[in-house]
């Protein structure tokens, strides 16, 4: 009987345009759109930054090693105009009103300092809201400083290499897969969880509040089917809808990479292809299934209690933030899956998925996370049943 209810509700749900848009269309499109947007914006930003001609104002002697260093700079370091300024006040004014991207003050006593082998302190001004200008100013000044240092070593007949006492080589022991898993791996489960929730939302409201509003629940309750059977049949559809939305998000990711070729970095491509394996997908769904049942279990009592579609929507929509917030915590660096975090719902799924992507997931922690989610899902089913059984909740 549960199967019959499930199949009917599934058919009914799949014929609802609003649910289909939320459950299939948006999740499929989100990855291609986000990736496309990211690639377009970042490539145009990089292009703009390289092409942009910066105006650099300076106060001080044009013959000083600082300004001379700027003039010697290779063209590959970006196009620039050097503009002399009579005083610091006018220079600062122009940096503030964006007429200049950078301002340099060369002290009047630079020659004295050079002669006495002391360091010359230069002031560099920039507006950090102009993205990328700080890095550009830093690279220019590093070039100028190195050029002046080389000249000083030369004038002193010194070998620069003799002053390098310790040379450090930094070696990363994490594989590329682990790096992606730990750093960016949280984004994927976050998206799956968010869509899992959204996917559950409309069917939950439609199958419970909607039935109440349309008056169909009354006829269903007069059939010789128990309320528990009705609840489980409907709940399975709600949970499946959440899983379907998460699956569609996964399909969207696959399409972005394999069909639309939105990622052209070979390293990232091979890592993502390595992630999209049957074993990863099975493990992911093992975690997402109890999560969507839990989501369904949280939404159903609200949907049963609400008197109208609008009322249910207005309560469940803010709940989205409450539920997805722990998923965002999982994105933070330093938060790892351990015996404590494995017991916190939603966070455990995010962290376990991250570890899964990185290939560092411990089976005990996976089982613990799964166990916690299954327990919560069962509690959610029980709570839903209690609410669904209340006479005042099921008929208007």
């Amino acid at each position, binding site marked *: 009987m549960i199967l019959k209810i499930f199949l009917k509700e599934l058919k009914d749900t799949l014929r609802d345009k609003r649910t289909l848009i939320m459950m299939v269309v948006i999740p499929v499109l989100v990855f291609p759109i986000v990736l496309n947007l990211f690639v377009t914006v970042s490539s145009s930003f990089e292009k703009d930054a390289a092409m942009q001609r910066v105006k650099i104002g300076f106060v001080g002697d044009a013959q000083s090693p600082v300004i001379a260093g700027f003039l010697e700079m290779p063209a590959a370091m970006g196009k620039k105009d050097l503009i002399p300024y009579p005083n610091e006040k006018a220079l600062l004014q122009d940096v503030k009103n964006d007429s200049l991207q950078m301002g340099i003050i060369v002290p009047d006593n630079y020659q004295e300092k050079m002669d006495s082998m002391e360091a010359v302190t230069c002031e560099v001004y920039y507006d950090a809201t102009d993205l990328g200008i700080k890095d550009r100013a830093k690279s220019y000044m590093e070039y100028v400083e190195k050029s002046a240092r080389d000249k000083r070593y030369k004038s002193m007949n010194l070998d620069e290499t003799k002053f390098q006492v310790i040379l450090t080589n930094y070696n990363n022991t994490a594989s590329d897969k682990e790096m992606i898993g730990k750093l960016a791996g949280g984004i994927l489960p976050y998206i799956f969880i968010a869509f899992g929730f959204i996917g559950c939302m409309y069917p939950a409201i439609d199958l419970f509040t909607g039935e109440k509003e349309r008056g169909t629940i009354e006829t269903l309750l*007069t059939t010789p089917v*128990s309320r528990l059977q009705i609840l489980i049949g409907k709940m399975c559809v709600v949970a499946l809808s959440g899983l379907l939305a998460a699956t569609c998000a996964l399909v969207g990711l696959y399409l972005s990479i394999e069909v639309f070729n939105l990622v052209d970095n070979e390293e990232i491509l091979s890592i993502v292809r390595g992630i999209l394996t049957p074993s990863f997908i099975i493990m992911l769904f093992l975690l997402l299934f109890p999560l969507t049942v839990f989501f369904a279990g949280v939404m159903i009592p609200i949907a049963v209690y609400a008197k109208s579609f609008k009322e249910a929507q207005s309560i469940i929509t803010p709940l989205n933030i409450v539920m997805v917030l722990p998923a965002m915590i999982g994105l933070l660096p330093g938060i790892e899956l351990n015996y404590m975090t494995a017991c916190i719902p939603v966070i455990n799924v995010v962290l376990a998925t991250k570890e899964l992507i990185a290939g560092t997931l411990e089976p005990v922690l996976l089982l613990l996370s799964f166990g916690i989610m299954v327990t919560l899902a069962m509690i959610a089913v029980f709570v839903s049943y209690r609410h669904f059984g209340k006479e005042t909740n099921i008929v208007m």
Partner: protein
Amino acid sequence: MIKVENLRKEFPLGRTLQKELATKEKIAVAVDNISFQCQPGRIFSLLGPNGAGKTTTMRMLSTIFKPTSGNIEIAGINAVTNSRDARRKIGFLTGSTGLYARLTPNELIKYFADLYEVSDADFKIRKEKLFDLLDMNDFQNKRIGKLSTGMKQKVSICRTMIHDPEVIVFDEPTSGLDVITAENIISLIRDCKNDGKTVIFSSHIMSEVDLLCDDMAIVHKGKLLYNGTMENFRSNQQESSLTAEFIRIIHESNAATV
């Protein structure tokens, strides 16, 4: 047969409801100790003004609500202790019943037949008979959401009858319907009676009651004011019309309560 004994239904009143109803009572008594019997092959009408307790009684008969106390017997089955078996014997139709708009009449009728565990062979025979009788063949594969009110009502009737119930509960079945659709329902109620089924229907349309009923009960504020045959009611009526007599009884009850 339907046998109702000392039926009572209380609803807890939360703070919001207490405020809305301007009362400090913690419970509201919707149905207060009522008893009646409906015989097979006869039509029993439950009359009463809005808020009298008709719908609550009908919902208890169809096992949607559980009585606070009292007993209901449906075709020999105790509907309070064995509601699931009782439900197999009941067909329930209201004027406000919704249908699944995204299903076709064919799919909906099959779904309910499955829920009532009707065998495939019985389903085929009954479906054919009901679809012919209600002239539903032309729109059996159209989505219900695209059907007219009259067509929808036919689908509702078909859904109520697909498991061939012994007892049929009609809760204000013609409310809000046009004359032609209402006539279909009236004719169905008459057919049910002729088939020897037990029929109970609640209404506040006196002409329907006058036309159809063999027995009737009047409820007001959850209490039973009259229970007997239509013949007996007519022979004792003090006013010229059924409507006027009904109003008199209600006013008399109100005056007695004050």
